[in-house]
């Protein structure tokens, strides 16, 4: 059985994939919780991930993928991970990364700060040294940067995966999963000729195989309706529609209306035609997961937007028995918990642990006892 774990982090992303064979992939890392705020319902991400690693007696992830380098996808990384490029980020207890996945933007953007800079420097280091990294891009886009480093494209081509390709390193037979890269096609600049991170984020499609059954999952990062439209057009043109079918979709950008269409709308955001088409590729019982704060009752500027949520709810109904789940609302707004989607021969199922019993008592140390 494979498992997808969505962590309640507010408007931020972290998804851990636990493969049946024990390999683990982390999509983004954003430790959002404010430890000084007792009312902060966001999970202590570092502690939760460490607890799992300890249980498995591991100190690394097979892959850590950053869909893009905005802080809601990277926060706290420099405190959590072991980075090879600088001593400062090394030491006892840091979690190692076998292979780092980043979009090309993460290599070539300048002026990154904080976490983004650390991850960029690590990705650059690994690419320069030629190990433990996978950059998602049209290879030619990296040629200039490589040249500056005194490297040729051919010497690093095996570390670069273009859109429309199967991602090397995972196979159906060995791992029970195959990843297909949809995005980025190219690096987009915004009006100010600065790298637009959201528009250049990583979009991957995973086909999980378990019990002779395929379950398809689409990871969308923070792309907008425009990128979705491009992806849909290109994919359909190439006859790759099967790579946009989904049983689980990690809906983009914390339930922002901009991932659906240009206008927020009164009650429902009306989708661009390609977006509408994408959500029709959901199969019966499909799950739409929004990594976001609870859906507000009133209009807001920042996501999540209630109009967007209404669109997703409408689509959940349309594909029959679909479910729209918000990470900070699951299982209840007052006490969000990790959303676990199990994947086996009967397709995905949301793990529903009733709770109670002795498990919580024996899976943690007892309080101190004694006379002093």
């Amino acid at each position, binding site marked *: 059985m494979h498992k997808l774990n969505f962590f309640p982090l507010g408007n931020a992303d972290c998804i851990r994939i636990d493969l049946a064979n024990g390999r683990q992939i982390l999509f983004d890392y954003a430790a959002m919780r404010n430890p000084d705020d007792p009312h902060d319902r966001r999970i202590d991400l570092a502690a939760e991930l460490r607890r799992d690693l300890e249980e498995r007696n591991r100190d690394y992830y097979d892959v850590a993928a950053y869909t893009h380098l905005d802080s809601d996808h990277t926060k706290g990384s420099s405190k959590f991970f072991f980075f090879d490029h600088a001593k400062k980020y090394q030491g006892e207890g840091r979690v190692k990364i076998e292979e780092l996945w980043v979009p090309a933007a993460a290599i070539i953007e300048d002026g990154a700060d904080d976490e983004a800079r650390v991850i960029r420097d690590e990705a650059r280091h690994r690419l320069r040294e030629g190990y433990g990294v996978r950059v998602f891009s049209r290879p030619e886009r990296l040629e200039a940067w490589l040249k500056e480093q005194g490297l040729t494209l051919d010497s690093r081509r095996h570390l670069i995966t273009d859109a429309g390709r199967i991602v090397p390193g995972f196979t159906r037979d060995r791992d029970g999963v195959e990843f297909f890269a949809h995005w980025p096609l190219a690096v987009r600049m915004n009006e100010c000729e600065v790298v637009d991170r959201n528009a250049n984020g990583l979009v991957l499609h995973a086909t999980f195989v378990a019990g002779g059954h395929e379950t398809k999952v689409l990871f969308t990062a923070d792309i907008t309706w425009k990128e979705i439209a491009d992806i849909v057009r290109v994919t359909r043109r190439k006859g790759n529609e099967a790579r946009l079918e989904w049983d689980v979709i990690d809906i983009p950008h914390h339930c922002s209306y901009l991932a659906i269409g240009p206008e927020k709308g009164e009650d429902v955001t009306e989708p661009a035609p390609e977006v509408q088409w994408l959500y029709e590729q959901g199969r019966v019982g499909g799950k739409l997961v929004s990594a976001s704060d609870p859906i507000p009752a009133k209009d807001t500027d920042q996501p999540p937007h209630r109009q967007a949520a209404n669109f997703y709810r409408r689509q959940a109904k349309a594909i029959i028995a679909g479910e729209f789940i918000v990470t900070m609302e699951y299982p209840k707004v007052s006490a969000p918990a990790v959303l676990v989607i199990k994947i086996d021969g009967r*397709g995905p199922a949301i793990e529903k642990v009733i*709770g*109670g019993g002795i498990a919580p008592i024996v899976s943690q140390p007892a309080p101190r006892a004694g006379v002093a």
Partner: protein
Amino acid sequence: MDDTYLTPPGQAIQPEEISVPKARDLVKLLRSGHLAHVVFVEARRAQDGDVVVFDIEPEVPQHLVAPIALVERIAVTFYDDDRQMPETVALRKDFPRDVPHLNLRPSAYPWASLCLYAEQYDDLKLRWTAAGYVRRVHEWLSKTARGELHEGDQPLEPFIIPSALTLVLPQDLLQGASEGRELVIYRTLAKDDRVFVARWRGPRDGDSPVFRTALIVTEPRVHGVIHQQPRNVEELHSLLEPLGVNLLSLLRERLRTLPADEATQAARLAIIAIIPQTRREGAQPERNEIWVFVTLAQIRDIGAALGLWTLEPGGVRAVLLQPDLERRGREIVLELLGPVFELSREYAAKLSGVTPGTPRIVAVGAGALGSQVINNAIRTGWGGWTIVDDDHLLPHNLVRHLLTGTAVGVPKATAVAMMINDLFDSEEVAQDIVANVLRSEEHEQLKNALAEAELILDMSASPTVSRHLAANVESSARRLSLFLNPAGTDLVLLAEDAERRIRLDDLEMQYYREVIRNELLADHLRRNGQRLRYGRSCRDVTVSIPQDRLAIAGGIGARAIRRAAEAQEARISLWRLRPDLGVDNLTVPVYRVQVADREGWQIRYDEGLAERMFSLRAERLPNETGGVLIGHRDMHRRILYIVDALAAPPDSGERPIFFQRGSQGLRAEIEDIGSKTAEALVYVGEWHSHPDGHGLDPSADDQKVLAWLREKLAPEGLPTVMLIVGNGDLAIHFAGAS
């Protein structure tokens, strides 16, 4: 309540009005928020208990086996007296009715009743918690959604859930039905009408049975539960009609042909339907589902209700020329009985988790150990037994015997055979022969049984009997011997190989050799550390072994003989019950046997002995070495067994050209060997080695040794041997007693 759900039992009340403690606990738990995925809906009051309604979210996969919804509404009734299992029902109108583990309820019952627990409520109460209950409901729904509540290797779901009343049926029900035989049903000794036993009508069944029967075989049906129990003959007719049976006309025919006497007309009716069940449409039937219904009404009333006759005042029947087809038995109420089958060998094996087996076994000795071993074996469906014993059961035997006081005075073989035959309905698994096995030649039945046996199992606790079985019985059967040591601490199994190359008497000798060589067995054949005169028998009534210990031996023994019988090779195994009640196992290596004939005597020794002498010789080269031989003489059969060779005493002379055996400590050593083996092993001769290149012929000196041996032992009437041992070879020089 919206349109999705049925109205729950009872009337709505305030949660605070709930009074049944378990209901109160549940409401408190649901409202506490301790559990996720479950929400309190309302409290209600039914006639006989409190009702709690809640919503629960099971874990449902994308691909459902049964249409369980993301949210299910559940109502549970806790009864005021808390004597019955709380009734848990699903309220959703389209909740599936064809899933396994729903309770059987009358046809007017609107809800689907979940069968959550396999155990009795009284047992469940001991560990009941509201949280545990909610988790169980969650698990039931989640597993049902995946079709995993009923695992693939479980037996098919019974068509109708069993009732509290039971009918025991013969194993050959289907065959008897096809032969048109009649079942008769009697009360058991208990007479409390809880369990009835059905038998085929035999010549002695003249008196009136409790029930007359109608036996029906239907067309095959795909398995699955029927959740509505037929309450009367007409409803049963409707249920059977799709299975190709016209019950009404069958019953009319059956009743018309019954005698008109008072006893028959006053009897009740049992309807036994055999329904072959398949896993899928068109598949081969895997088993037969049996339904048994009985009427409360008498035959005369049933006939009237089926329109065969009318009843005049005083119960007189007025038979109609044409049956009144309008009368369809609606007023004949049916009670459901749970059918069970008599035990068969196959069923016994299945319940034991083993495969049945039917080797023809002659068991010699139905004493304490024998009776329990046979009993243990046959209760797993293993063996076709001929039990040989000439002893009668006496009161003191009851301390450690399968049999009970009713058998005192009866030959043990007879009583044990009767007792185990009684286990099975349709097969005779044992016969008895009351005879002394040592006189088997004179007993035709015994002689034949031994000749035709596949296994001859000696449990007589007598070496004499095991020797007789090994050497003096005409049969190709493999021989096994199972016995306890005198102190009752150790159980010993000797088992010949399948081709009988190593005989039981040879195994006995190799076993003795282990006893003298293995320090752990120093007291094995002693009792309380005291030496015994010849024989390892524990027949002596003064032996004080408790039955609990014998039961362990009987358990190990039964399994050990089966294992030995199903393997090819010979074996010597010993089990010791430690004081802390653990059991140690010792397996002794078995060696092939060599046989030589000299002057009307047979010399038998095994390769283990030869190897020992070869290695003692090799250690001393270039010198000669030697010592005394230990063995056993069977004067009756004129067999000399050479069992062990002792090393040279320390005062021996060992040179390249001679060996002179010393005597320091030898006497004590031989005494000790006698003591350890209950005098079975004694001094039987001498051995010495020749260096390489000198052959095995006796030298002049060797001839003198042999003459000296003969001189010493011939007057005792004892034959003796001198062995000369070379490089991987040995020569036997025999000195007879005459």
